[in-house]
């Protein structure tokens, strides 16, 4: 069944003029599709806006980053897991470093409170962080002045430290603080570098707190007991985050001698895992929105079918005439299918435009984290595809009815 381009152009023109001639009726008929498409596209716009926000946040955080924490399983009595069994030890970190090929950088991190003094100022209970030189890479914190920590600092437990700008302020150190000395619990430390201030919109208040960093080996010395260590590590690539996670888990279980079936005494968290979870959640919501649109398109489709049946019976004589001048049943069928599709696509277009407007409206809501809300191209295309399919599906029966009309009876129709 092949028709001339002229047939198609005339059929489409006729479909448009039918819709326009009955524009009120067409609008009411297409309402189901308009509402369905507008609501889905705007939900998708909101989701994609939120997703863009959250994902850029995660990515800036480092999607390939992993954390390891000590963790007491809560399925057994506490007495079975004394603190010492749970605590992460430095040698365990070195073991992970040695046996996890998917890791690029790893550092233990330990935090504790000390008294800090400069020539100008003395402060109590300031948090000091001890870490390996890998920390710069693992936490993505570089220096803006001076130098980063190196392996010699760590191995020979040099009394050196890094500060952030807030710490310089609080200790009233000169702006060019590199080269100055500070006292930590009475020990003299040389300031070798200034680390850049942490920037995060969503997580934590990084930027404003004073931070002091010292080599991990020294941090171990300065603390008396009950040392709490966590680990930050970086997978070689985001794609192997999950692999890195299981490598760490297996290594830890092995060195801690955890029997199969027993719970982990630690917890490994991959940022990527959160990203995947978030993506899965977003996909779930999109699917639900899709389901809702499916239902409203079904309702809309029934309206389309009804109006097309009305159209066929109103235009029975016209159909008879078209057949008399040579329209085949296939041509009549095609024409009414095109008309139903045009009606649905027009509804889809209006729906997409409304969705687009709603998306623009969302970006203007202050503090809603929706400034990136936009109807993605795939949603526009999908809306049109859906509309066309509804037109095809629900236009089929009326079109078949038109195609099967007997021309003689059709021409006799009042």
């Amino acid at each position, binding site marked *: 069944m092949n028709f001339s381009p002229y047939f198609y152009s*005339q059929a489409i023109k006729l479909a448009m003029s039918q819709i326009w*001639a009955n524009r009120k009726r067409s609008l009411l008929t297409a309402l189901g599709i308009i509402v369905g498409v507008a609501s889905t596209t705007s939900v998708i716009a909101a989701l994609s806006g939120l997703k863009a926000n959250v994902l850029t946040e995660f990515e800036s955080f480092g999607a390939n980053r992993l954390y390891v924490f000590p963790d007491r399983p809560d399925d057994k009595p506490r007495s079975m897991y004394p603190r010492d069994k749970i605590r992460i030890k430095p040698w365990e970190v070195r073991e992970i470093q040695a046996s996890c090929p998917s890791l690029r950088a790893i550092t233990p991190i330990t935090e504790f409170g000390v008294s800090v003094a400069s020539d100008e100022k003395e402060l109590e209970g300031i948090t000091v962080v001890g870490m390996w030189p890998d920390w710069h890479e693992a936490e993505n914190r570089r220096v803006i002045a001076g130098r980063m920590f190196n392996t010699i600092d760590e191995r020979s437990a040099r009394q050196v430290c890094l500060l952030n700008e807030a710490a310089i302020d609080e200790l009233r150190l000169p702006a060019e603080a590199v080269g100055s000395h500070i006292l930590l619990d009475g020990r003299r430390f040389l300031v070798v570098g200034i680390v850049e201030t942490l920037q995060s919109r969503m997580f934590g208040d990084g930027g404003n707190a004073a931070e002091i960093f010292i080599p991990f080996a020294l941090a171990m010395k300065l603390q008396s007991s009950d040392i709490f260590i966590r680990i930050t590590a970086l997978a070689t690539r985001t794609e192997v985050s999950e692999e890195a996670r299981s490598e760490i888990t297996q290594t830890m279980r092995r060195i801690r001698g955890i029997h199969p079936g027993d719970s982990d005494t630690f917890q490994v968290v991959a940022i990527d895992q959160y990203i995947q979870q978030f993506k899965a959640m977003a996909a779930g919501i999109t699917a639900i929105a899709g389901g809702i649109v499916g239902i409203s398109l079904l309702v809309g489709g029934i309206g389309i079918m009804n109006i097309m049946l009305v159209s066929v019976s109103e235009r029975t004589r016209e159909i008879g*005439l078209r*057949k*008399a*001048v*040579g329209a*085949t049943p296939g041509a009549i069928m095609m024409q009414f299918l095109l008309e139903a599709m045009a009606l649905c696509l027009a509804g889809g277009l209006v729906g997409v435009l409304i969705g687009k407007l709603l998306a623009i409206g969302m970006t203007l809501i202050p503090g809603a984290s929706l400034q990136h809300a936009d109807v993605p191209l795939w949603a526009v295309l999908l809306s049109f595809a859906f509309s066309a399919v509804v037109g095809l599906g629900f236009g089929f029966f009326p079109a078949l009815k038109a195609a099967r009309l007997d*021309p003689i009876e059709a*021409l006799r129709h009042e």
Partner: protein
Amino acid sequence: MIRVRALRKVYRVGDEAIHALRGVDLDIGTNEMVAVMGASGSGKSTLMNIIGCLDQPTEGSYELDGQRVSHMSEAALALVRNEKIGFVFQSFELLARQTALENVELPLVYSREAGLTGGERTRRALQALERVKLSDRVTHRPSQLSGGQKQRVAIARAILNHPAILMADEPTGNLDSVTTREVMGIFQQLHAEGQTVLIVTHENEVAAFCQRVIRLRDGLVLSDLPIAEDAAGHHQG
């Protein structure tokens, strides 16, 4: 041109069989102008519909332009209608929202002819309108035309594809006597230009424009005479 043999048409309404045609034999040659007459219910429209390929006979054979068309598929019949047959109806059947020109172009929408340009389509439609003397009403819509003018647009549409036969079932049924003459004048002129014409009518005045009159009664050919003899016989009868 047209060769009909032992044509029968039976309609079934419930248990009842209505014999609309009971064995009609008919030959119509090229460039004849024939009137079909007969009482209401005698089978005129039934015969026209079969000759016009809108309907299939129950029995018998029908050849159009050397082609056996009885028992063709619906799609094949549509093609025959498009290329070989021009219909004119009692109630014009023009599309209200389209101009005279667009109405005349309609058969080309369903044409099998490939590669027709827009210019060529318009040229043909204008030529058809010229032949029915409506070159000055090209962009008018049906509501802006008189009854006679509407029927002339319908005739232009019917002759657009240069059909083997131009068929009209009571084309003047909705017209007064003045416009009847106007429309019949057009049929006569087309006939003079070589067109084969077949007209169903109740009116002797209309039949008088034709050369030959076929009279039906109860689904059978009652008489088939040249107009002069038919008119004489009719007077006697």
